[in-house]
């Protein structure tokens, strides 16, 4: 498409127009001046905040160092074959997992994106798009490197790596994630859609590694390459720079339809995270996924009243079996806990895995919990509606827990008579935790507020972050203290009370 004089309408310059760059710099400077003019923090406030930040960092660092020293002492006593295999495989699996996570997040958000305001006001203007997006690319790459490196260093430190290779390994994983961001951004500019396949392949590799470790099928690789991590770091860093250069070259090609969706998603996600409302994060992602799917093959229901809701849950599982697949894949965790000799802690780990992997199954309960208007449309009590929505997902999680029973038995050294009721209790605890998580209410800013360095914070904000995990600990405590049929009975009784309150509350 061209204008009447033959000039192209879309601006896809291979070389940035210097005048346009200057123009954009002027715009940025102007925005900065406006923001400074409206700053509402005095210098003394900033110094006070900085003091608190430095003090908190020092305190948290000393706690972290203490934990690392303790864990390394414990790790030094790890001599069983399964345990040493696990430690050897850990850096590889962690690295692959972090790269897969980076690619997944990059695919979700773009990785190149612009805020809705920039999309509305600056993208339509004839500004140099490369200059506009350059800071975003640099920021995304820096965040990816920093997060991955910090996690990798933490894992390496906790798993007893020699001090000299901890930083090299962290740098290596950080550079690999940098490479992932560069590749994702370059692919975005060229509209290549195979990135999802790469992400899933990496995820499948991590899962296969865990399965192999659990089954002791193959000997674990050495915990570091024969050459050490430093040469690997050099190679990955060179590749990462190349990928980022490719991404930088592709910035002017990025069109509005590629940049806007990630930016539209970000405010919802950051708003939910600001309220520590992780269920809302899940809502935003689920809504986006279904919007992308657009249409489905309609399936008429069966039954009447509550039975219609139960039948719809079955149809929902058939329509989108991914949550069931995720839960099935997570079955490796209880067995891995057994291989690593977690002991009775495997009961807690298994219940936690069922909780986190099972959240996706309870999507209709979540929708009904956050939308009272939908419940008003149904001629049943709220408890009946919630119970109908919970029935099918709860049955799936219970079956999953029963499938984990041999793993629990091996890990915690249980008798067959105790293992079955404990597996049921673990399943019910996982269900209770999910129900607590999805039926939670957002932070209530009408409640009394607590002064904090972040500003006034409602007390319920802190509860939001722990939602689900509190029920998990409550149900798991009797199992950890008394891993027997008696402990299972107490756990089931506690879970029953919590479930009754959650399903019946107004």
């Amino acid at each position, binding site marked *: 498409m061209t204008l009447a004089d033959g000039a192209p309408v879309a601006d896809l310059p291979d070389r940035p127009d210097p005048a346009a760059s200057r123009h954009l710099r002027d715009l940025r400077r102007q925005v900065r001046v406006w923001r400074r003019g409206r700053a509402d923090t005095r210098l003394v406030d900033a110094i006070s905040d900085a003091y608190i930040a430095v003090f908190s960092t020092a305190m948290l660092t000393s706690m972290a160092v203490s934990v690392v020293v303790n864990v390394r002492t414990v790790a030094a006593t790890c001599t069983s074959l399964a345990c040493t295999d696990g430690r050897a495989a850990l850096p590889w699996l962690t690295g692959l997992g972090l790269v897969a996570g980076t690619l997944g997040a990059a695919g979700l958000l773009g990785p190149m994106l612009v805020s809705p305001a920039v999309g509305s006001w600056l993208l339509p203007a004839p500004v140099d798009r490369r200059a506009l997006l350059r800071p975003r690319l640099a920021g995304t790459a820096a965040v990816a490197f920093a997060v991955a490196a910090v996690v990798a260093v933490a894992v390496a430190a906790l798993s007893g790596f020699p001090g000299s290779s901890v930083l090299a390994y962290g740098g290596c994983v950080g550079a690999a994630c940098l490479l992932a961001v560069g590749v994702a951004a370059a692919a975005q500019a060229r509209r290549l859609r195979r990135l999802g396949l790469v992400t899933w392949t990496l995820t499948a590799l991590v899962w296969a590694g865990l399965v192999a470790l659990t089954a002791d099928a193959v000997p674990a690789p050495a915990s570091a390459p024969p050459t050490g991590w430093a040469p690997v770091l050099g190679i990955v860093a060179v590749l990462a720079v190349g990928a980022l250069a490719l991404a930088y070259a592709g910035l002017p090609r990025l069109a509005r339809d590629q940049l806007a969706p990630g930016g539209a998603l970000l405010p919802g996600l950051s708003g939910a995270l600001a309220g520590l409302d992780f269920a809302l994060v899940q809502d935003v992602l689920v809504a986006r996924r279904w919007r992308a799917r*657009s249409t489905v093959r309609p399936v008429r229901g069966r039954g009447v009243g509550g039975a219609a*809701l139960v039948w719809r849950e079955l149809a929902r599982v058939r329509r989108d079996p991914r949550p069931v697949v995720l839960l099935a894949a997570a079955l490796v965790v209880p067995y891995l806990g057994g291989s690593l000799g977690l002991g009775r802690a495997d009961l807690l780990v298994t219940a936690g895995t069922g909780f986190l992997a099972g959240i996706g199954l309870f999507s209709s309960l979540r929708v009904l919990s956050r939308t009272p208007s*939908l419940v008003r449309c149904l001629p049943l009590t709220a408890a009946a509606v919630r119970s109908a929505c919970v029935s099918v997902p709860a049955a799936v999680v219970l079956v999953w827990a029963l499938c984990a029973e041999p793993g629990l038995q091996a890990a915690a050294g249980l008798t067959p008579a105790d293992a079955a009721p404990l597996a049921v209790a673990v399943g019910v605890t996982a269900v209770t935790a999910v129900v607590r998580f999805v039926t939670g209410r957002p932070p209530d800013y009408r409640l009394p507020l607590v002064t904090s360095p972040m500003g006034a914070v409602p007390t319920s904000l802190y509860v939001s972050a722990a939602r689900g995990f509190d029920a998990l600990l409550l149900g798991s405590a009797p199992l950890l203290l008394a891993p027997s049929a008696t402990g299972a009975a107490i756990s089931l009784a506690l879970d029953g009370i919590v479930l009754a309150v959650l399903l019946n509350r107004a």
Partner: protein
Amino acid sequence: MPRTPPTPPRLRVRGLTRRFGDVEVVTGLDLDLPAGGAVALVGRNGAGKSTVLRCVAAADVPTAGTVELDGEAVDERSPRTRRDMAVVMDDLDFFPDLSVVEHLDLFARAHGVPDAEAVVDAVLHEVRLVPQSAQLPGTLSSGQRRRLALASAFVRPRRLLVLDEPEARLDRPGLAWLVDRLQREKADGLGILLASHDAGLVEAVADSVVDLDRLP
């Protein structure tokens, strides 16, 4: 000749007051709505129309006053209230993974509608959403979402319709359909309480009008 007790109005509101902090949005509203009648609430933005509707639908708790449906106090937790009162307000959300037709099918079956499929098909046709029946609600236009919300009220049994600006985002044919549908609902003996800014809709449907700007 024995005297039959007087039939209570379908909806009776007495002394409805709703206060938010120091601000009294609605003060002492009385309202009677007979079966087969329609009352329209009108007034400027912020006059309290939606607040009244929310109190009537028991989605909000009045500071003072009572709301009765067929002589019984409305209670949002009661299945009877939910069965008898069909409410369409702006806060209706949808399941992200259920298509248009599946939403209506679910509502109809949950209400025990015999021959739910036929009822759903008829209403889908009426609201002109047949081409979108397989679509997920996140991909509908705002007008289509509005029609789906209205359709959800018509696929289920009801004795009272509570509608908050039902004309919002409807196109001209949609508005004509709405007028026709509400007149038929009245003829079938249903009560209708609606808040609206559309003078044409109010004139065509309402038997009486409550102007919230003119209340004391």
